[in-house]
């Protein structure tokens, strides 16, 4: 049986006045029911574009899938007609967006917005869909849901709006739930609640989840597998434990180092990754991370490595990831402490 969702060597490029932006340049992964995949990377690494490509929400032009495929239960989404795509969207595959403050339409009541996918996909009546919306609001933990459904978005706090967004995504009981930085715009205390809610929902509904974040800490708690992206490419893929405790790629090391660590003493330094992500139009020759990498060597400027399976199920795109000595030496401190 084919996997629930399969992204196969996806190349999503943007054709602009200034050149071709290779926003996603060869990403593959697959997802099984109930599985949670964490996708991690800095801004501009292509993780959101990957998610939007799955939803087919990238406007074409300027975007274009130049290579690769996305398959849902074995059927190519790219090959589908617009009509079939819509049948998936919001129904079988749903998405939660980053900024709940702006992602809800300010002129419609919350209840109506939650009911909308039900009315499209399930052909429910106005009344039934409204009742279902109230029920969904309850499920995502909004008190007095019947009243609150009548509210407008501006009457909700940020956390409540994100719950409402989740309710919209959940409305049709999707097989795949894509959460694009669902907690970034929220207060820290609310972040935890929302993550908990997502996990709770997963437990209840058996959806698969793609959790997109720049915060490795978030995926550590919830993900089964983790995909680390840099400059439009996957640089590391493995189980959450593998990536978290035995990271292979210097970029992953950088991400981990930049995490605030609560388990060590307060004075532990935050080490942000130096430099800026590269322009996606003019990628440096060889390894894209090379200019920022503390361990780069001559060979890195010459060629770039694809994902290589280092240990079973654990892939990395660094020339030296196969060299366990290098890995030990470079990031031993990380794995020991965890």
């Amino acid at each position, binding site marked *: 049986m084919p996997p629930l969702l399969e992204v196969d060597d996806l190349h999503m490029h943007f054709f602009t006045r200034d050149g071709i932006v290779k926003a996603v340049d060869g990403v593959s992964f697959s997802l099984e029911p109930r599985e949670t995949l964490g996708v991690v990377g800095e801004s501009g690494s292509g993780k959101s574009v990957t998610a939007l490509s799955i939803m087919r929400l990238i406007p074409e032009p300027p975007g274009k899938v130049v290579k690769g495929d996305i398959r849902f239960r074995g059927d190519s989404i790219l090959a589908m007609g617009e009509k079939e795509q*819509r049948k998936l969207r919001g129904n079988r595959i749903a998405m939660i967006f980053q900024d709940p403050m702006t*992602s809800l339409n300010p*002129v419609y009541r919350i209840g109506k917005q939650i009911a909308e*996918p039900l009315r499209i996909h399930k052909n429910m009546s106005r009344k039934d869909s409204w009742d279902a919306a109230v029920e969904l609001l309850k499920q995502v933990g909004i008190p007095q849901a019947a009243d609150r459904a009548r509210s407008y978005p*501006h009457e909700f706090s940020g956390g409540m709006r994100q719950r409402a967004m989740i309710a919209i995504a959940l409305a049709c009981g999707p097989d795949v739930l894509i959460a694009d930085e669902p907690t970034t715009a929220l207060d820290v205390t609310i972040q935890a609640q929302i993550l908990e809610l997502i996990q709770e929902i997963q437990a209840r509904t058996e959806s698969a989840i793609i959790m997109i974040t720049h915060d490795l800490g978030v995926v550590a708690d919830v993900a089964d597998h983790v995909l680390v992206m840099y400059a439009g490419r996957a640089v590391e893929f493995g189980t959450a434990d593998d990536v978290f405790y035995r990271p292979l790629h210097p970029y992953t090391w950088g991400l981990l180092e930049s995490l605030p660590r609560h388990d060590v003493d307060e004075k532990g330094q935050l080490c942000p990754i130096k430099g800026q992500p590269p322009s996606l139009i003019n990628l440096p020759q060889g390894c894209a991370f090379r200019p920022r990498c503390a361990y780069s060597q001559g060979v890195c400027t010459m060629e770039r490595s694809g994902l290589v399976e280092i240990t079973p199920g654990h892939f990395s795109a660094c020339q030296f990831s196969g060299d366990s000595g290098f890995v030990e030496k470079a990031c031993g401190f990380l794995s020991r402490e965890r």
Partner: protein
Amino acid sequence: MLTYIGRRILQMIPVFIGVTILLFILRAPGVLPGDPIKLITGERAISPALYNQIVKENALDKPLWYQYGRWMDHLFHGDLGESYQLKRPVADILIEKFPNTLKLALVAILIECFMGMAAGILSAVKRYSFWDVLVTLSTSILVSLPVFWLGMILQVIFGIKFKEWGLPYLPISGMTSADFPGWVHYVLPAVTLASISTAYAARITRSQLLEVMGQDYMRTASAKGLTGGQVIWRHGLKNALIPVVTYLGLDLGAMVGGTILTETVFNWPGIGFQIYRAILSRDWPIVLGAVVIIVILVMIINLLVDISYAFLDPRIRYGRVAK
């Protein structure tokens, strides 16, 4: 909401008083050249009896402040005085002329509403396409056209040339004629009057829609599985059209007093031309009465536009916004 409306009405009072005082200052003898009453008989000298009669009836021999008070007092009793030139009650003249201007303005607003919005939506949805360029260019041309020139060209083409060529043609002036049903007379003047505003409405619709189309909630709507049309129709338009509605409201207000050119070209028996004539002949009772009515109408329209905001955009709660 009620306090807001109350506050807005209170704010109107100084504007109203300002406008009327300004008019009375202009009306004071010696400010504008020419004796209004001597103008009544044109090139022929006025008889002293007629002169004195009109001075007496209008209390023009009294101090200006007294005249102002008297005029205000009459206004509150619904009396706008009598025209010097036409020797008819100003109220009668206004009751005759205002509806004609308002009707024309409403038809023009309807044209703006449909044509402007349709063009704006078309060009926003098909951005950078042929249609977008066409709309952009034609709106730029429309806002650059002198209205009276456009009116003259329309008259020649649709009224005269079409008839010469044996095509269905349109009446070119007035509100009524034996050969056409009444509504046909609205076509050319309303199109002329609407021309510039339609272009603006199209531009505003386009830019608002483009802005809205970049909003996150539009992406949310797409993610729900709505078609492109549904996304724009259900989620985009309501947001994008709020400023358009404001514009149309303000424009209606502007049209109430600003249709002189169209009325002149199309011989429309409206208020704009009446005031224009009254200013030139210093027929102050008409100028005062008409301008006051226009100002009140404009203020009411603006208030209605504000209130309609509250219904269109739930984020606005006037009570809260008040600082």
